């Protein structure tokens, strides 16, 4: 590889397989945001998404030898993240004994606890939680992580058209949710 050329995922995966901590850390830094977007998309809760990401990265390292196409590490990682997030979500639901939708919809005060510090962040989080999981994942991957529809469609195993549709719906709902929230504040004032 020529100097100055960005290190590929395949090369980092190969080094991490040999126990290279720096290479693994670079993979974590490079893909954390996408992993978080997927985890948040499934769980709808920021704190859970962070726990899921941490767990998923370590699990991915343990199973790194199973990654057959290291150049497609991101897609492989996100599958692990999604599975962990689903398991975590089911575990939370069983432990809490409440319907799934109730677990997903976190109030702004819940979302703002510890991790979510800013008010805006809490509002966004709550609004995102109101979306169906698939729309959440699409809007987070597109608008937070900057993925294109082709990559999203491939990752979620849906068509590009479907991805666009989900994004459109998600944005529309978010605007409604965030708009009504702002309206409430205006009326209080």
């Amino acid at each position, binding site marked *: 590889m020529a100097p100055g050329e960005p290190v590929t995922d395949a090369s980092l995966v190969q080094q991490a397989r*040999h*126990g290279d*901590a720096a290479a693994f850390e670079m993979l974590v830094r490079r893909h*954390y945001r996408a992993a*978080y977007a997927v985890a948040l998309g499934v769980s709808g809760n920021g704190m859970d998404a962070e726990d899921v990401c941490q767990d998923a990265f370590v699990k991915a*390292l343990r199973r790194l030898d199973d990654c057959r196409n290291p150049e497609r590490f991101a897609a492989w990682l996100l599958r692990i993240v999604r599975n962990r997030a689903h398991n975590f979500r089911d575990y939370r639901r069983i432990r809490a004994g409440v319907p799934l939708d109730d677990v997903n919809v976190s109030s702004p005060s819940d979302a703002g606890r510890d991790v979510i510090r800013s008010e805006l962040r809490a509002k966004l989080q709550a609004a*995102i939680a109101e979306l169906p999981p698939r729309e959440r994942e699409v809007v987070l991957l597109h*608008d*937070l992580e900057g993925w294109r529809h082709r990559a999203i469609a491939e990752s979620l195993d849906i068509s590009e058209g479907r991805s666009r549709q989900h994004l*459109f719906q998600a944005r529309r709902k978010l605007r409604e949710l965030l708009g009504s929230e702002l309206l409430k504040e205006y009326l209080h004032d």
Partner: protein
Amino acid sequence: MTEEPIDLGPLDPTADAARFDATVAAVMRDAALELRRRRLGWTAMGQLDRWRRPMLAAAAVMVLVSGAVLWQTRPRSLQTETGVAEALGVPTQLATWVRDDALPSPEQLLFALPEIDQ
């Protein structure tokens, strides 16, 4: 369809650099054991350790096969006759001459004498 993106920047887990560093550090702490295991697995000692078990298994199989072959191909009649002669206290060399109905030369007798004396 509206294509205007929604600013989800406040949700970006990497936006707060210090916080993100702490998150990465937490992942690396959890991953330390696995990384160490992998490092050891790729050193010379690790490679030797990795081959130890199959090598031992192969050696055990070879011992079993060799033992079975030796057992099958052992000279049974000679072993029995010599065994009986030896059991009766007859020196091995003498028992061989008797069995083969061979007359030993004086030199052979001379060399065999120490054994016969015993």
